[in-house]
């Protein structure tokens, strides 16, 4: 089975969307450190994306330290970096930006949006 889920939507670059999904899966504990990461070919086929894009995804995640190449094993998921509260917050950055832009467009104030957030928070938790 493919170890992480991503629904690719038009608009944002495909590699950003997939990298975001991988980071999320690692931080949520769905992709465990030490487990094998799919190959470029598997990523390309499974997600139906350009092989060059799949290659770029693996290269960027490797540069970031989230993946490492282990001889004989292939690409392996690494322990996520320590400052994880910050990393977790970074995952919401795009959604937050979107929310702020929409709110400003509709002339909703910061306190109104904070209140709305709190209400939703209560509803769900």
């Amino acid at each position, binding site marked *: 089975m493919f170890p992480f889920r991503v629904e690719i939507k038009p*608009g944002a670059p495909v590699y950003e969307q997939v990298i975001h999904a991988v980071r999320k899966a690692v931080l949520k504990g769905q992709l465990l450190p030490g487990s094998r990461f799919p190959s470029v070919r598997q990523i390309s086929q499974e*997600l*139906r994306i350009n092989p*060059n894009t799949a290659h770029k995804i693996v290269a960027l995640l490797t540069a970031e330290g989230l993946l490492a190449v282990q001889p004989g094993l292939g690409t392996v998921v690494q322990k996520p970096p320590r400052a994880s509260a910050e990393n977790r917050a970074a995952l919401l950055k795009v959604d937050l930006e979107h929310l702020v832009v929409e709110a400003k467009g509709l002339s909703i104030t910061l306190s109104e949006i904070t209140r709305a957030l709190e209400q939703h928070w209560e509803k769900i938790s």
Partner: protein
Amino acid sequence: MIEPVISAENLGKAFGPVEALRGTSFTVPRGCIYGLLGPNGAGKTTTIKILMNLLRPSAGRAEVLGRDSKNLGWRDFQRIGYVSENQLMPDDMRVGELLDYLEPYYPTWDAALCNELLQQLELPRDRRMKNLSRGMKMKASLLASLAFRPELVVLDEPFSGLDPVIREDFSRGLLSTVSESEWTIFLSSHDIEEVERLCDWVGIMSPGRLLVSEPLEDLLRRFQRIDVTLPAPPTPAIDWGADVLRAETSGVTVSLVHQRYSGDATLAELRAKIPPSSTLYPAPMTLRDIYLSFVRKHQSSNP
């Protein structure tokens, strides 16, 4: 620089008085998946037929795998896989018979890959071609043009009329073979979402002309929609400059399509043209938005 797999210089084609293609120049680098988008009648198939030496250009020239397209012959087609929408197939042959028949024509035919693709594309070896559905037929012709590991695969409207499941099978079949070697794929399509996923280079055609040809990432980066809200309806109309492809005004809001967006510098440039109390909201565009902006712009300027 590595020699491109395809390069076209000023290609033109006239059918009698009708100019189907004018001044079309582009290159397709090795190892990329190039998607050619355009409305019906834009000249996509004409371009592909010239590249495949099925049509002679009336002007300009094209090189394919280092050869003038006008001189492409059977030896070259041992290195090129070509699938077109309405390909003629030997109807009475079974799928397996067709593959056995084709094999000796290609020195590089890979029987193992052929079997792998048969399974992956779920094609029945013993079914006659005439009894295959449209989707199955397309998959069979894809298989026939991939099994000899061509350097270049040319697909004319491969997704049109395929149901979503077959379309996925088709894309996966294509990707399973390209991702292990440096193959180049050149395809034309109406399916913008599929092109946005699969392709790393795109070209956009509007009747007879190629309007853009560049890496998809560059295109998505430089295009931006900017919604401007003005204090009052703009009279006279504002001159936004040549970098704005389209400007649609409705009351006090103007929706701009900017084609050379560079963040704050662009916004500052635009701000200088409008009253200080206006607001500007930039938002990224999808390939579909960009495509439609080009086509609509062309339609409104050439009635």
